[in-house]
């Protein structure tokens, strides 16, 4: 059988790595991705492990890398992806990489610091120039007067003895949002002794740190008196304004302005030089950073893996335990041999037995990966348990298609998936970051099969965008009915609805050879027929699917050496399921085959028969389908009920009987087995079962863990109840196949009737219909894709998934394993 049938054989190997070659060996193993290391130092904290110093060095280097990356990002550059294969460098190279990185980081920091300082200086100069250049006309004019203006009264303010009447100026710049507050405070503090003028700059200046343009408000305060001056300075300090010296004479100011402009020009040249140097440094960073990051990442991973090995000081080597697939053992040994012969030593690996449950390894290719993915999403299978994935490849798209059946919609889905599959190797498609696109892209093969099966079920349901097609002529003859019943035109005009009677000769000519007859799409009572058909179809498909699940359990029981379960569990389960619900399927098919239209009026009702079967009662109006039906039914019910105690007590009694001689013979030995039992993985649900199922090869009885009778009975009781009640509820659960296909068909029909039908019926003139159809078809297309493809598709996907995960898999699958996740660097190569 294919390799997907159950997990590959995974063995525990012990690796002896001489200290000289340990690093290269592990690095090589990481490149190959063959083994999963087990942590042998689990009790040791991270700070006490052997290679903690190296790990720490790698982490510091990674911190520097992060800083460099941040600088690169700030400069607006993009790191190129690393090229080529970069293996983990030998430990001595780490020093070199560290030195280079440190040097670059230091240079970068220096240059950045310089740049910041220069920028701040430039900003100050610019602000000063702006303040000087700003004209505060009236104030300056007022300063030149002799004070004969209306300021006169101010000069005689009761401010004490005369100060010098010279007008002094304070000029500066403040942020606009602080300006009103500043003005108010100045007015209140120095009322009457100053004139303040606030002007906004025409152009915003660039902020030195953030680079954003910021507006500034310049102010010019003319005041009298030294104390006022001090007050003003205190206030401006308080508001963190930039204050600049303001010279009275116009020429002096102009000279100062010229000087400032010259200085700022020089400064800008220096700034330019600095930025050129910065880009040079960044160029070197761009060269060093990508390969460096990959290499250091790999190195750290290798050291972390080495930390998991235990040290054997006597042999001067590291001992590692790893899970490895048996098929890969030769490759493993060859890899170890190659990487250790370079150092002149030899590393070996050999298999050791283990009691723990190994991880599960199922190799998939890009087609089967998505199906294995949806099975694993529920739970990774236990080691060597039967894998539902190869059957899911077909049953999942099929059950989806039963709920989605429409040729047109299926075709659209198929074409979309085909486009993705054909373009799957294009780099642009692979590099797309959108998560939703990635989800669809990863499931492209799933969508392909779903679309394909939907086309098939669409043909069977005879629905193409809710329209039926007559590939073959219909099996119902309206004319024959009309002729036989004398349907004249007058008669037809009086009766709005008339029913074709299959009893009339010539009306029903035989079943439509492929799918549902197209006449039903014209009928008003098509739902009566379709509902009956789809419900029965759902039950039939459900019973078949579940029986298949129970049958798959046979392979598990045989493989794990639990043949008693075949007789004590599988057989009762199958009898129960098929005796009750298989019989229902039989009744359905029998009625389809044997009850014809001639006896339609008195046709037996399967539902009533089924109910009476369980109640052991009888309905006189419901005729039997076949002679001795009641006897058969009674037998089946009794048989099924008899299976319940077998299911409940069979396996526990058998196990207890088998273990009782051992329990009596070796009571002392049980303590050792207890300790051994502690090593079992915590996911073993019941002690008894875990030891049973781990004995894949059939080990001796003396290694069994303790068997607690109450737990065994409890477990089996739960299983019995789950199975028996589950049979009923799960069979009913399959009716969702009917429900969703009905919903899809109705939605599709409504969309056609409300949108397209109206559009096609509009306008008898040639031009009108053509023009009107364009927007109508656009609306139809958008709603088809949005509602019927996306929404219904997701809904059917979900329900098909549920049917698999719950109704199918709970018959045989436990899903309590864990995956083999090999030690590999491939995550960093992406």
């Amino acid at each position: 059988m294919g390799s997907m049938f159950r997990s590959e054989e995974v063995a525990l190997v012990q690796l002896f790595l001489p200290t000289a070659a340990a690093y290269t060996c592990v690095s090589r193993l990481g490149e190959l991705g063959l083994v999963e290391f087990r942590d042998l130092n689990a009790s040791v904290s991270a700070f006490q492990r052997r290679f903690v110093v190296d790990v720490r060095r790698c982490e510091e280097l990674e911190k520097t890398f992060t800083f460099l990356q941040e600088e690169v990002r700030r400069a607006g550059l993009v790191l190129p992806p690393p090229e080529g294969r970069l293996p983990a460098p030998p430990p001595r190279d780490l020093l070199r990489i560290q030195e280079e990185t440190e040097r670059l980081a230091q240079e970068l920091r220096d240059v950045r610091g310089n740049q910041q300082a220069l920028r701040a200086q430039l900003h100050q100069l610019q602000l000063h120039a702006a303040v000087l250049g700003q004209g505060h006309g009236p104030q300056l004019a007022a300063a030149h007067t002799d004070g004969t203006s209306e300021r006169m009264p101010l000069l005689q303010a009761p401010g004490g003895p005369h100060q010098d009447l010279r007008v002094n100026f304070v000029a500066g710049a403040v942020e606009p949002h602080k300006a009103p507050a500043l003005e108010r405070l100045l007015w209140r503090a120095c009322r009457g002794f100053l004139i303040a003028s606030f002007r906004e700059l025409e152009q915003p200046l660039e902020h030195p740190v953030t680079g954003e343009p910021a507006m500034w408000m310049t102010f010019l305060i003319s005041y009298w008196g030294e104390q006022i001056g001090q007050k003003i300075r205190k206030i401006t300090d308080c508001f963190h304004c930039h204050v600049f010296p303001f010279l009275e004479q116009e020429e002096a100011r102009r000279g100062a302005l010229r000087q400032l402009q010259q200085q700022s020009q020089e400064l800008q040249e220096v700034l330019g030089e600095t930025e050129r140097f910065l880009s040079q440094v960044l160029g070197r960073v761009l060269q060093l950073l990508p390969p460096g990051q990959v290499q250091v990442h790999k190195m750290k991973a290798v050291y972390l893996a080495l930390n998991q090995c235990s040290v054997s000081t006597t042999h001067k080597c590291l001992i590692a335990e790893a899970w490895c697939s048996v098929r890969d053992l030769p490759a493993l040994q060859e890899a170890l041999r190659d990487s250790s012969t370079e150092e002149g030593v030899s590393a070996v690996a050999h298999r050791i037995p283990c009691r723990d449950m190994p991880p599960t390894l199922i190799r998939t290719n890009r087609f089967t990966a998505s199906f294995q993915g949806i099975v694993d999403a529920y739970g990774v299978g236990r080691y060597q348990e039967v894998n539902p994935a190869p059957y899911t490849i077909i049953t999942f798209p099929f059950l989806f298609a039963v709920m989605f059946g429409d040729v047109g919609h299926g075709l659209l889905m198929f074409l979309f998936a085909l486009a993705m599959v054909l373009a799957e190797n294009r780099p642009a498609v692979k590099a797309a970051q959108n998560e939703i696109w990635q989800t669809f892209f990863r499931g492209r093969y799933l969508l392909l099969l779903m679309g394909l099966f939907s086309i098939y079920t669409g043909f069977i349901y005879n629905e193409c965008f809710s329209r039926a097609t007559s590939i073959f002529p219909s099996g119902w003859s309206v004319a024959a009915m009309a002729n036989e019943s004398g349907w004249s035109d007058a008669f037809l005009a009086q009766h709005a609805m008339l029913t074709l009677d299959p009893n009339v000769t010539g009306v029903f000519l035989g079943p439509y050879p492929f799918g549902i007859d197209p006449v039903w799409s014209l009928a008003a009572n098509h739902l009566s027929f379709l509902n009956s058909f789809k419900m029965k179809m759902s039950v039939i498909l459900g019973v078949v699917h579940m029986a298949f699940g129970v049958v798959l359990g046979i392979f598990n029981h045989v493989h794990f050496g639990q043949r008693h379960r075949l007789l004590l569990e599988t057989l009762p389960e199958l009898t129960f399921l098929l005796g009750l619900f298989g019989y229902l399927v039989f009744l359905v098919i029998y009625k389809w085959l044997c009850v014809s239209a001639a006896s339609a009026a008195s046709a037996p009702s399967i539902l009533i028969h089924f109910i009476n079967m369980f109640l052991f009662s009888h309905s006189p109006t419901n005729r039997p389908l076949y002679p001795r039906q009641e006897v058969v039914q009674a037998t089946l019910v009794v048989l099924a009920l008899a299976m319940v105690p077998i299911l409940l007590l069979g396996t526990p009694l058998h196990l207890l009987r088998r273990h009782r001689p051992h329990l009596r013979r070796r009571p002392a030995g049980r303590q050792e087995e207890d300790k051994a039992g502690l090593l079992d993985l915590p996911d073993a649900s019941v002690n008894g079962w875990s030891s049973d199922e781990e004995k894949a090869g059939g080990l001796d009885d003396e290694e069994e863990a303790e068997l607690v009778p109450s737990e065994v009975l409890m477990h089996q009781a739960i299983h019995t109840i789950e199975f028996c009640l589950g049979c009923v509820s799960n069979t009913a659960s399959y009716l969702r196949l009917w429900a969703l296909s009905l919903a899809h068909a109705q939605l599709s029909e409504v969309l056609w009737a409300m949108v397209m039908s109206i559009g096609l019926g509009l306008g008898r003139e040639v031009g009108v219909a053509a023009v009107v159809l364009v927007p109508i078809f656009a609306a139809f297309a958008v709603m088809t894709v949005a509602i019927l493809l996306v929404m219904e598709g997701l809904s059917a996907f979900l329900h098909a998934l549920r049917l698999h995960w719950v109704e199918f898999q709970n018959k045989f699958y436990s899903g309590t394993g864990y995956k083999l996740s090999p030690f590999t660097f491939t995550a960093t190569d992406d």
Partner: protein
Amino acid sequence: MLSALPGRGPAHLQRPLLGPASHLGILRPAMTAHSFALPVIIFTTFWGLIGIAGPWFVPKGPNRGVIITMLVATAVCCYLFWLIAILAQLNPLFGPQLKNETIWYVRFLWE
């Protein structure tokens, strides 16, 4: 059985079940009875070829098991689905209920 139908269409609407209405002078598609045996034989053979004979022709390779599983599962699922559809229509207990407009045009269109 002749039934005189005034109004619509020619008076030759008495239709035999098989064969063209030769007195019309034109060949119309015949409403042949659908047999049950023929589709069953055809489809059983078809899906049987895919599901039973197909696995023998799958080339040896790592994916042989998976491909065989897929072929058999496809054959079983698709055959079962088709079989259910045809069995459900084998002995209908009631017929379609049509609007009178539908009866008017189908009567002359499909025959």
